Protein backbone atom coordinates (compact mmCIF):
# COMPACT_ATOMS: atom_id res chain seq x y z
CA UNK A 1 0.00 0.00 0.00
CA UNK A 2 1.05 3.58 -0.54
CA UNK A 3 -0.13 6.68 1.29
CA UNK A 4 -1.85 9.24 -0.95
CA UNK A 5 0.57 11.89 0.30
CA UNK A 6 3.52 9.78 -0.96
CA UNK A 7 2.20 9.50 -4.52
CA UNK A 8 4.26 11.53 -6.95
CA UNK A 9 4.32 12.07 -10.68
CA UNK A 10 5.39 8.72 -12.12
CA UNK A 11 4.09 6.58 -9.22
CA UNK A 12 2.22 3.44 -10.30
CA UNK A 13 -0.97 2.48 -8.48
CA UNK A 14 -3.78 -0.01 -8.96
CA UNK A 15 -7.33 1.36 -9.36
CA UNK A 16 -10.12 -1.20 -9.91
CA UNK A 17 -7.40 -3.77 -10.63
CA UNK A 18 -6.10 -1.63 -13.48
CA UNK A 19 -2.54 -0.26 -13.37
CA UNK A 20 -2.37 3.53 -13.55
CA UNK A 21 0.52 5.95 -13.61
CA UNK A 22 0.22 9.33 -11.91
CA UNK A 23 0.77 12.09 -14.47
CA UNK A 24 -0.19 15.08 -12.32
CA UNK A 25 -0.39 15.51 -8.60
CA UNK A 26 -1.40 18.57 -6.63
CA UNK A 27 -1.60 19.05 -2.92
CA UNK A 28 -4.74 20.98 -1.99
CA UNK A 29 -5.74 22.37 1.35
CA UNK A 30 -9.20 23.86 0.96
CA UNK A 31 -8.67 26.42 3.72
CA UNK A 32 -10.69 24.54 6.30
CA UNK A 33 -10.49 20.92 7.39
CA UNK A 34 -8.32 18.13 6.04
CA UNK A 35 -5.76 18.24 3.26
CA UNK A 36 -6.24 16.42 -0.03
CA UNK A 37 -4.15 15.22 -2.96
CA UNK A 38 -5.65 15.77 -6.40
CA UNK A 39 -4.38 13.21 -8.91
CA UNK A 40 -4.49 12.77 -12.65
CA UNK A 41 -3.96 9.10 -13.44
CA UNK A 42 -3.44 7.39 -16.78
CA UNK A 43 -4.60 3.83 -17.27
CA UNK A 44 -1.52 2.06 -18.61
CA UNK A 45 -3.50 -0.44 -20.65
CA UNK A 46 -6.26 1.71 -22.14
CA UNK A 47 -4.63 5.14 -21.97
CA UNK A 48 -7.80 6.59 -20.47
CA UNK A 49 -7.40 9.39 -17.96
CA UNK A 50 -8.91 9.39 -14.49
CA UNK A 51 -9.12 12.33 -12.12
CA UNK A 52 -9.26 11.45 -8.47
CA UNK A 53 -8.99 13.27 -5.14
CA UNK A 54 -7.83 11.53 -1.97
CA UNK A 55 -7.38 12.55 1.62
CA UNK A 56 -3.63 12.69 2.28
CA UNK A 57 -3.91 9.85 4.79
CA UNK A 58 -5.79 7.50 2.39
CA UNK A 59 -4.00 4.29 1.46
CA UNK A 60 -3.92 3.15 -2.15
CA UNK A 61 -2.72 -0.06 -3.69
CA UNK A 62 0.67 0.30 -5.29
CA UNK A 63 1.86 -1.71 -8.26
CA UNK A 64 5.04 -3.74 -8.20
CA UNK A 65 7.05 -2.90 -11.29
CA UNK A 66 10.46 -3.84 -12.63
CA UNK A 67 13.04 -1.42 -14.04
CA UNK A 68 15.23 -2.59 -16.92
CA UNK A 69 18.22 -0.98 -18.62
CA UNK A 70 17.44 -0.71 -22.34
CA UNK A 71 18.95 0.88 -25.42
CA UNK A 72 16.90 3.22 -27.60
CA UNK A 73 17.17 2.06 -31.23
CA UNK A 74 14.85 4.27 -33.29
CA UNK A 75 11.34 5.69 -33.58
CA UNK A 76 9.01 5.02 -36.50
CA UNK A 77 5.62 6.63 -37.05
CA UNK A 78 3.93 4.56 -34.33
CA UNK A 79 6.48 3.11 -31.94
CA UNK A 80 9.69 3.67 -30.06
CA UNK A 81 11.96 0.64 -30.55
CA UNK A 82 14.19 -0.48 -27.67
CA UNK A 83 16.53 -3.37 -26.93
CA UNK A 84 17.04 -5.01 -23.53
CA UNK A 85 20.79 -4.60 -22.87
CA UNK A 86 20.99 -7.95 -21.04
CA UNK A 87 18.90 -10.28 -23.23
CA UNK A 88 19.17 -8.29 -26.49
CA UNK A 89 15.39 -8.73 -26.90
CA UNK A 90 13.79 -5.97 -28.92
CA UNK A 91 10.43 -4.48 -28.04
CA UNK A 92 8.23 -1.49 -28.90
CA UNK A 93 6.50 1.18 -26.84
CA UNK A 94 3.67 3.04 -28.61
CA UNK A 95 4.42 6.72 -29.20
CA UNK A 96 0.80 7.72 -28.64
CA UNK A 97 0.52 9.58 -25.35
CA UNK A 98 4.31 9.70 -25.01
CA UNK A 99 5.03 12.09 -27.90
CA UNK A 100 6.83 14.61 -25.72
CA UNK A 101 9.55 12.05 -24.86
CA UNK A 102 10.67 11.93 -28.50
CA UNK A 103 12.80 15.05 -27.98
CA UNK A 104 14.78 13.34 -25.23
CA UNK A 105 15.49 9.97 -26.86
CA UNK A 106 18.92 9.73 -28.44
CA UNK A 107 19.63 6.83 -30.83
CA UNK A 108 21.93 4.32 -29.15
CA UNK A 109 21.66 5.78 -25.65
CA UNK A 110 20.58 3.73 -22.64
CA UNK A 111 17.41 4.46 -20.64
CA UNK A 112 15.39 2.87 -17.85
CA UNK A 113 12.09 1.31 -18.91
CA UNK A 114 9.43 0.24 -16.41
CA UNK A 115 7.84 -3.19 -16.86
CA UNK A 116 4.61 -4.41 -15.32
CA UNK A 117 3.85 -8.12 -15.76
CA UNK A 118 6.36 -8.38 -18.63
CA UNK A 119 4.82 -5.37 -20.44
CA UNK A 120 6.89 -2.22 -20.95
CA UNK A 121 4.75 0.62 -19.60
CA UNK A 122 6.92 3.69 -19.13
CA UNK A 123 10.19 5.27 -20.20
CA UNK A 124 12.07 6.96 -17.37
CA UNK A 125 14.14 9.95 -18.41
CA UNK A 126 17.05 11.22 -16.30
CA UNK A 127 16.11 14.58 -14.73
CA UNK A 128 18.99 16.23 -16.55
CA UNK A 129 20.53 15.23 -19.89
CA UNK A 130 23.33 16.53 -22.09
CA UNK A 131 22.51 17.46 -25.70
CA UNK A 132 24.57 18.78 -28.60
CA UNK A 133 23.42 21.96 -30.27
CA UNK A 134 22.84 21.10 -33.94
CA UNK A 135 21.35 24.39 -35.10
CA UNK A 136 21.92 27.81 -33.58
CA UNK A 137 21.68 31.21 -35.12
CA UNK A 138 24.61 33.49 -34.47
CA UNK A 139 24.12 35.64 -31.40
CA UNK A 140 22.46 38.93 -32.15
CA UNK A 141 23.92 41.81 -30.25
CA UNK A 142 21.40 42.20 -27.46
CA UNK A 143 20.78 43.48 -24.00
CA UNK A 144 22.91 40.91 -22.20
CA UNK A 145 22.36 42.57 -18.83
CA UNK A 146 18.75 41.43 -18.68
CA UNK A 147 19.78 37.93 -19.82
CA UNK A 148 18.64 37.90 -23.47
CA UNK A 149 17.99 34.43 -24.94
CA UNK A 150 17.52 32.65 -28.27
CA UNK A 151 16.06 29.29 -29.25
CA UNK A 152 18.40 26.55 -30.50
CA UNK A 153 17.76 23.01 -31.80
CA UNK A 154 19.50 19.90 -30.44
CA UNK A 155 20.37 16.66 -32.23
CA UNK A 156 17.02 15.06 -31.28
CA UNK A 157 14.99 18.03 -32.54
CA UNK A 158 14.57 19.38 -28.99
CA UNK A 159 14.23 23.16 -29.00
CA UNK A 160 15.62 25.00 -25.97
CA UNK A 161 15.79 28.63 -24.94
CA UNK A 162 19.46 29.39 -24.19
CA UNK A 163 21.72 32.38 -23.48
CA UNK A 164 23.06 34.20 -26.54
CA UNK A 165 26.62 32.87 -26.15
CA UNK A 166 25.61 29.26 -26.93
CA UNK A 167 26.69 28.24 -30.44
CA UNK A 168 26.37 25.29 -32.79
CA UNK A 169 28.35 22.25 -31.57
CA UNK A 170 28.15 23.26 -27.89
CA UNK A 171 27.02 20.67 -25.39
CA UNK A 172 24.34 21.83 -22.97
CA UNK A 173 22.65 20.38 -19.89
CA UNK A 174 18.83 20.42 -20.09
CA UNK A 175 16.21 19.70 -17.41
CA UNK A 176 13.94 17.07 -18.99
CA UNK A 177 10.94 17.97 -16.81
CA UNK A 178 10.91 21.72 -17.45
CA UNK A 179 12.74 21.64 -20.83
CA UNK A 180 14.87 24.45 -19.46
CA UNK A 181 18.55 25.09 -20.20
CA UNK A 182 20.77 24.50 -17.15
CA UNK A 183 24.37 25.16 -18.22
CA UNK A 184 27.01 24.70 -20.93
CA UNK A 185 29.09 21.57 -20.36
CA UNK A 186 31.87 21.94 -22.95
CA UNK A 187 35.07 20.35 -21.71
Amino acid at each position, binding site marked *: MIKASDIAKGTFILINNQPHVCTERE*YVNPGKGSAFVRLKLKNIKSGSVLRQTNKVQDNLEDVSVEYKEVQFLYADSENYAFMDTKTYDQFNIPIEGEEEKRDFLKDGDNYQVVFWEQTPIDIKLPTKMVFTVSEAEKAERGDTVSGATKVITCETGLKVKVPLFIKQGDRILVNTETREYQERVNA
Partner: protein
Amino acid sequence: MRHARFTEAIRAFFQGRGYAEVDTPALSPHLIPEPAIEVFQTEYFPERGPARPMWLIPSPELWMKRLLAEGAGDIYQISKSFRNCDFGGPYHNPEFRLLEWYTVGAGYLDSVGVTEDLFSHLLARTAPSRPGEELSPPFLRMSMEEAFHLYADIDLARCQDPLSMKAEAQGKGILIQGSPTWEEAFHIVFLTLVEPRLPRQKPLVLFDYPALVPTTARRRPGTPWSERWELYVDGVEIANCYTEETEPGVLRSFVRHEEERRGRCRTAHASDPDFADLFPSGFPECSGAALGVDRLEMVFAGEKSLEGVILFPFSAILGGQSGRRVKGIT
Protein backbone atom coordinates in the same frame (compact mmCIF):
# COMPACT_ATOMS: atom_id res chain seq x y z
CA MET B 1 11.43 46.54 -5.12
CA ARG B 2 8.21 44.92 -6.36
CA HIS B 3 7.58 43.14 -3.06
CA ALA B 4 7.79 46.38 -1.12
CA ARG B 5 5.72 48.34 -3.66
CA PHE B 6 2.98 45.75 -3.35
CA THR B 7 2.78 45.79 0.44
CA GLU B 8 3.05 49.58 0.52
CA ALA B 9 0.11 49.80 -1.88
CA ILE B 10 -1.98 47.45 0.29
CA ARG B 11 -1.17 49.53 3.39
CA ALA B 12 -2.04 52.77 1.61
CA PHE B 13 -5.40 51.30 0.57
CA PHE B 14 -6.46 50.27 4.07
CA GLN B 15 -5.07 53.36 5.75
CA GLY B 16 -6.95 55.50 3.25
CA ARG B 17 -10.16 53.78 4.34
CA GLY B 18 -9.54 54.33 8.03
CA TYR B 19 -8.48 50.79 9.02
CA ALA B 20 -5.90 50.69 11.84
CA GLU B 21 -2.83 48.56 11.15
CA VAL B 22 -2.13 46.13 13.97
CA ASP B 23 0.82 43.90 14.77
CA THR B 24 -0.05 40.74 16.70
CA PRO B 25 2.14 37.80 17.87
CA ALA B 26 3.53 35.35 15.33
CA LEU B 27 4.71 33.05 18.15
CA SER B 28 1.92 31.98 20.43
CA PRO B 29 1.20 29.59 23.35
CA HIS B 30 -2.16 28.67 21.77
CA LEU B 31 -3.83 28.94 18.40
CA ILE B 32 -7.25 29.15 16.75
CA PRO B 33 -9.39 26.08 17.50
CA GLU B 34 -8.77 24.38 14.17
CA PRO B 35 -6.79 21.22 15.00
CA ALA B 36 -6.84 20.02 11.37
CA ILE B 37 -4.27 22.67 10.44
CA GLU B 38 -0.69 21.39 10.48
CA VAL B 39 1.48 23.85 12.42
CA PHE B 40 5.09 24.43 13.47
CA GLN B 41 5.87 23.75 17.10
CA THR B 42 8.76 25.06 19.15
CA GLU B 43 9.61 25.59 22.83
CA TYR B 44 10.09 28.56 25.10
CA PHE B 45 12.54 28.23 28.01
CA PRO B 46 11.33 30.39 30.90
CA GLU B 47 13.63 31.52 33.71
CA ARG B 48 12.16 28.86 35.99
CA GLY B 49 10.12 25.76 35.43
CA PRO B 50 9.69 23.47 32.45
CA ALA B 51 9.88 24.49 28.81
CA ARG B 52 6.58 25.68 27.36
CA PRO B 53 5.35 24.50 23.97
CA MET B 54 4.80 27.37 21.53
CA TRP B 55 3.48 27.51 17.98
CA LEU B 56 3.98 29.69 14.93
CA ILE B 57 0.61 31.12 13.94
CA PRO B 58 -1.21 29.65 10.91
CA SER B 59 -3.11 32.98 10.75
CA PRO B 60 -3.39 36.07 12.96
CA GLU B 61 -7.16 35.54 13.40
CA LEU B 62 -7.11 34.73 17.10
CA TRP B 63 -5.22 37.85 18.14
CA MET B 64 -7.13 40.13 15.79
CA LYS B 65 -10.41 38.85 17.20
CA ARG B 66 -9.16 39.69 20.70
CA LEU B 67 -8.61 43.26 19.53
CA LEU B 68 -12.08 43.36 17.94
CA ALA B 69 -13.61 42.15 21.21
CA GLU B 70 -11.84 45.06 22.95
CA GLY B 71 -13.44 47.53 20.55
CA ALA B 72 -10.52 48.13 18.17
CA GLY B 73 -12.85 48.87 15.23
CA ASP B 74 -11.75 48.29 11.61
CA ILE B 75 -8.31 46.67 11.62
CA TYR B 76 -5.90 45.02 9.19
CA GLN B 77 -2.45 43.52 9.13
CA ILE B 78 -0.02 41.80 6.80
CA SER B 79 1.53 39.06 8.91
CA LYS B 80 3.92 36.22 8.29
CA SER B 81 1.92 33.03 8.81
CA PHE B 82 3.05 29.41 8.83
CA ARG B 83 1.55 26.08 7.78
CA ASN B 84 3.51 22.88 8.22
CA CYS B 85 3.52 19.64 6.28
CA ASP B 86 3.19 21.06 2.82
CA PHE B 87 3.59 18.58 0.01
CA GLY B 88 4.99 20.90 -2.61
CA GLY B 89 3.32 22.32 -5.68
CA PRO B 90 3.41 25.81 -7.10
CA TYR B 91 1.01 27.52 -4.67
CA HIS B 92 2.34 26.57 -1.24
CA ASN B 93 5.21 27.93 0.79
CA PRO B 94 5.19 26.96 4.49
CA GLU B 95 5.98 30.57 5.44
CA PHE B 96 3.74 33.09 3.70
CA ARG B 97 2.35 36.61 3.92
CA LEU B 98 -1.29 36.80 4.93
CA LEU B 99 -3.37 39.97 4.71
CA GLU B 100 -6.24 39.81 7.17
CA TRP B 101 -8.79 42.56 7.67
CA TYR B 102 -11.96 43.02 9.68
CA THR B 103 -14.69 45.53 8.89
CA VAL B 104 -17.04 46.29 11.77
CA GLY B 105 -20.74 46.50 10.90
CA ALA B 106 -20.15 44.80 7.54
CA GLY B 107 -21.31 41.49 6.07
CA TYR B 108 -19.49 39.09 3.76
CA LEU B 109 -20.87 40.64 0.58
CA ASP B 110 -19.67 44.10 1.69
CA SER B 111 -16.18 42.58 1.79
CA VAL B 112 -16.48 41.61 -1.90
CA GLY B 113 -16.74 45.35 -2.63
CA VAL B 114 -13.69 46.11 -0.46
CA THR B 115 -11.71 43.40 -2.28
CA GLU B 116 -12.76 44.72 -5.69
CA ASP B 117 -11.65 48.21 -4.64
CA LEU B 118 -8.35 46.78 -3.38
CA PHE B 119 -7.75 45.16 -6.80
CA SER B 120 -8.51 48.46 -8.59
CA HIS B 121 -6.12 50.26 -6.25
CA LEU B 122 -3.35 47.68 -6.80
CA LEU B 123 -3.86 47.72 -10.57
CA ALA B 124 -3.33 51.48 -10.55
CA ARG B 125 -0.35 51.42 -8.17
CA THR B 126 1.72 48.35 -9.00
CA ALA B 127 1.85 48.04 -12.82
CA PRO B 128 0.92 44.35 -13.17
CA SER B 129 2.73 42.25 -15.78
CA ARG B 130 -0.53 41.24 -17.53
CA PRO B 131 -3.55 42.98 -19.07
CA GLY B 132 -5.34 44.86 -16.30
CA GLU B 133 -8.82 43.86 -17.55
CA GLU B 134 -8.08 40.23 -16.60
CA LEU B 135 -7.98 41.29 -12.94
CA SER B 136 -10.19 44.37 -12.79
CA PRO B 137 -13.62 44.49 -11.15
CA PRO B 138 -16.41 43.62 -11.35
CA PHE B 139 -15.49 40.07 -10.30
CA LEU B 140 -17.57 37.12 -11.47
CA ARG B 141 -19.95 35.79 -8.82
CA MET B 142 -21.22 32.24 -8.49
CA SER B 143 -22.84 30.46 -5.57
CA MET B 144 -21.53 27.07 -4.48
CA GLU B 145 -25.01 25.65 -5.17
CA GLU B 146 -24.88 26.90 -8.77
CA ALA B 147 -21.30 25.62 -9.23
CA PHE B 148 -22.34 22.12 -8.09
CA HIS B 149 -25.32 22.22 -10.46
CA LEU B 150 -23.21 23.34 -13.40
CA TYR B 151 -20.08 21.27 -12.99
CA ALA B 152 -21.09 18.20 -10.96
CA ASP B 153 -24.83 17.97 -11.73
CA ILE B 154 -25.48 17.63 -8.01
CA ASP B 155 -28.24 19.39 -6.07
CA LEU B 156 -26.19 20.42 -3.05
CA ALA B 157 -29.20 21.71 -1.08
CA ARG B 158 -30.79 18.23 -1.18
CA CYS B 159 -27.59 16.36 -0.49
CA GLN B 160 -27.10 17.01 3.20
CA ASP B 161 -25.96 13.72 4.72
CA PRO B 162 -22.71 11.77 4.23
CA LEU B 163 -24.33 8.75 2.58
CA SER B 164 -26.18 10.72 -0.07
CA MET B 165 -23.07 12.79 -0.83
CA LYS B 166 -20.95 9.63 -1.14
CA ALA B 167 -23.63 8.01 -3.35
CA GLU B 168 -23.75 11.12 -5.59
CA ALA B 169 -19.96 11.06 -5.87
CA GLN B 170 -19.88 7.38 -6.77
CA GLY B 171 -22.60 8.02 -9.34
CA LYS B 172 -20.16 10.39 -11.02
CA GLY B 173 -17.41 7.77 -11.04
CA ILE B 174 -15.52 9.23 -8.09
CA LEU B 175 -13.90 6.73 -5.78
CA ILE B 176 -14.23 7.58 -2.08
CA GLN B 177 -12.60 5.32 0.47
CA GLY B 178 -14.21 4.21 3.73
CA SER B 179 -16.84 6.22 5.55
CA PRO B 180 -16.12 9.86 4.86
CA THR B 181 -17.70 12.68 6.80
CA TRP B 182 -20.05 14.87 4.77
CA GLU B 183 -17.37 17.53 4.69
CA GLU B 184 -14.75 15.13 3.30
CA ALA B 185 -17.09 13.79 0.61
CA PHE B 186 -18.08 17.36 -0.30
CA HIS B 187 -14.45 18.42 -0.66
CA ILE B 188 -13.57 15.36 -2.76
CA VAL B 189 -16.41 16.14 -5.21
CA PHE B 190 -15.61 19.86 -5.15
CA LEU B 191 -11.89 19.33 -5.80
CA THR B 192 -12.41 16.66 -8.47
CA LEU B 193 -15.32 18.00 -10.51
CA VAL B 194 -16.08 21.59 -9.55
CA GLU B 195 -12.96 23.57 -8.73
CA PRO B 196 -10.99 22.60 -11.89
CA ARG B 197 -13.92 23.84 -14.03
CA LEU B 198 -14.57 27.20 -12.37
CA PRO B 199 -14.47 30.10 -14.86
CA ARG B 200 -11.08 31.80 -15.10
CA GLN B 201 -11.56 34.77 -17.42
CA LYS B 202 -11.96 37.10 -14.42
CA PRO B 203 -11.51 36.83 -10.64
CA LEU B 204 -14.36 34.70 -9.29
CA VAL B 205 -16.18 35.06 -5.98
CA LEU B 206 -17.55 31.63 -5.04
CA PHE B 207 -20.08 32.36 -2.30
CA ASP B 208 -22.45 30.67 0.15
CA TYR B 209 -20.49 27.63 1.26
CA PRO B 210 -22.39 24.72 2.83
CA ALA B 211 -23.02 25.30 6.54
CA LEU B 212 -22.06 21.63 7.00
CA VAL B 213 -18.42 22.70 6.49
CA PRO B 214 -17.73 23.94 10.01
CA THR B 215 -16.21 27.42 10.22
CA THR B 216 -16.76 30.57 12.26
CA ALA B 217 -18.86 32.01 9.41
CA ARG B 218 -22.45 32.90 10.28
CA ARG B 219 -25.21 30.72 8.85
CA ARG B 220 -27.53 32.50 6.44
CA PRO B 221 -30.86 32.30 8.28
CA GLY B 222 -33.26 29.65 6.98
CA THR B 223 -30.78 28.19 4.49
CA PRO B 224 -28.15 25.42 4.46
CA TRP B 225 -25.48 27.99 3.56
CA SER B 226 -22.80 29.90 5.45
CA GLU B 227 -22.11 33.56 4.77
CA ARG B 228 -18.70 32.76 3.33
CA TRP B 229 -16.92 33.29 0.03
CA GLU B 230 -13.61 32.42 -1.49
CA LEU B 231 -11.89 34.35 -4.25
CA TYR B 232 -10.33 32.46 -7.16
CA VAL B 233 -7.95 34.05 -9.63
CA ASP B 234 -6.64 31.89 -12.53
CA GLY B 235 -8.26 28.95 -10.73
CA VAL B 236 -6.11 29.56 -7.63
CA GLU B 237 -7.72 30.23 -4.26
CA ILE B 238 -6.58 33.68 -3.13
CA ALA B 239 -8.89 34.77 -0.29
CA ASN B 240 -11.46 33.49 2.20
CA CYS B 241 -14.10 35.69 3.84
CA TYR B 242 -16.94 35.38 6.37
CA THR B 243 -19.63 37.30 8.04
CA GLU B 244 -18.23 36.41 11.46
CA GLU B 245 -20.42 34.37 13.77
CA THR B 246 -20.91 36.25 17.05
CA GLU B 247 -23.36 33.95 18.87
CA PRO B 248 -21.46 32.41 21.84
CA GLY B 249 -23.48 29.16 21.82
CA VAL B 250 -22.82 28.54 18.13
CA LEU B 251 -19.10 29.25 18.60
CA ARG B 252 -18.87 26.90 21.59
CA SER B 253 -20.36 24.12 19.51
CA PHE B 254 -17.87 24.93 16.70
CA VAL B 255 -14.99 24.65 19.19
CA ARG B 256 -16.39 21.33 20.51
CA HIS B 257 -16.67 19.95 16.98
CA GLU B 258 -13.12 20.99 16.15
CA GLU B 259 -11.78 19.45 19.35
CA GLU B 260 -13.19 16.10 18.21
CA ARG B 261 -10.86 16.26 15.24
CA ARG B 262 -7.79 16.62 17.45
CA GLY B 263 -5.20 13.95 16.77
CA ARG B 264 -5.82 13.73 13.03
CA CYS B 265 -2.80 15.85 12.26
CA ARG B 266 0.87 15.30 13.10
CA THR B 267 1.36 18.21 15.51
CA ALA B 268 -1.59 18.66 17.81
CA HIS B 269 -1.62 22.23 19.09
CA ALA B 270 -3.22 23.89 22.08
CA SER B 271 -6.33 25.85 21.16
CA ASP B 272 -7.04 29.12 22.91
CA PRO B 273 -9.10 28.06 25.96
CA ASP B 274 -10.76 31.47 26.01
CA PHE B 275 -11.73 31.58 22.33
CA ALA B 276 -15.48 31.14 22.78
CA ASP B 277 -15.41 33.53 25.75
CA LEU B 278 -14.36 36.41 23.50
CA PHE B 279 -17.85 36.65 22.19
CA PRO B 280 -20.28 37.23 25.06
CA SER B 281 -18.41 40.44 25.90
CA GLY B 282 -19.84 42.43 23.04
CA PHE B 283 -17.96 41.05 20.03
CA PRO B 284 -19.01 43.31 17.15
CA GLU B 285 -20.94 42.27 14.05
CA CYS B 286 -18.23 42.23 11.41
CA SER B 287 -16.82 40.63 8.30
CA GLY B 288 -13.31 39.17 8.28
CA ALA B 289 -11.25 38.33 5.22
CA ALA B 290 -7.88 36.64 4.78
CA LEU B 291 -5.92 36.98 1.56
CA GLY B 292 -2.66 35.31 0.55
CA VAL B 293 -0.38 38.20 -0.41
CA ASP B 294 2.25 36.02 -2.12
CA ARG B 295 -0.43 34.38 -4.26
CA LEU B 296 -1.93 37.78 -5.06
CA GLU B 297 1.46 39.10 -6.10
CA MET B 298 1.96 35.94 -8.18
CA VAL B 299 -1.24 36.48 -10.20
CA PHE B 300 -0.56 40.19 -10.62
CA ALA B 301 2.93 39.31 -11.92
CA GLY B 302 1.43 36.74 -14.32
CA GLU B 303 3.59 34.05 -12.68
CA LYS B 304 2.51 30.40 -12.50
CA SER B 305 4.33 29.63 -9.25
CA LEU B 306 5.09 31.37 -5.97
CA GLU B 307 8.76 30.82 -6.81
CA GLY B 308 8.37 33.64 -9.30
CA VAL B 309 7.68 36.18 -6.54
CA ILE B 310 9.26 34.83 -3.34
CA LEU B 311 12.93 35.83 -3.06
CA PHE B 312 13.97 32.65 -1.25
CA PRO B 313 11.43 29.83 -1.83
CA PHE B 314 11.30 27.27 0.99
CA SER B 315 11.99 24.24 -1.22
CA ALA B 316 15.15 25.86 -2.54
CA ILE B 317 16.55 27.03 0.80
CA LEU B 318 15.86 23.56 2.17
CA GLY B 319 17.86 22.11 -0.71
CA GLY B 320 20.84 24.23 0.29
CA GLN B 321 20.51 26.61 -2.64
CA SER B 322 19.90 30.29 -2.52
CA GLY B 323 16.81 29.53 -4.59
CA ARG B 324 16.81 32.90 -6.31
CA ARG B 325 14.47 32.79 -9.29
CA VAL B 326 13.28 36.34 -8.78
CA LYS B 327 15.79 38.45 -10.67
CA GLY B 328 17.45 41.17 -8.61
CA ILE B 329 15.26 42.70 -5.98
CA THR B 330 13.34 44.94 -8.32
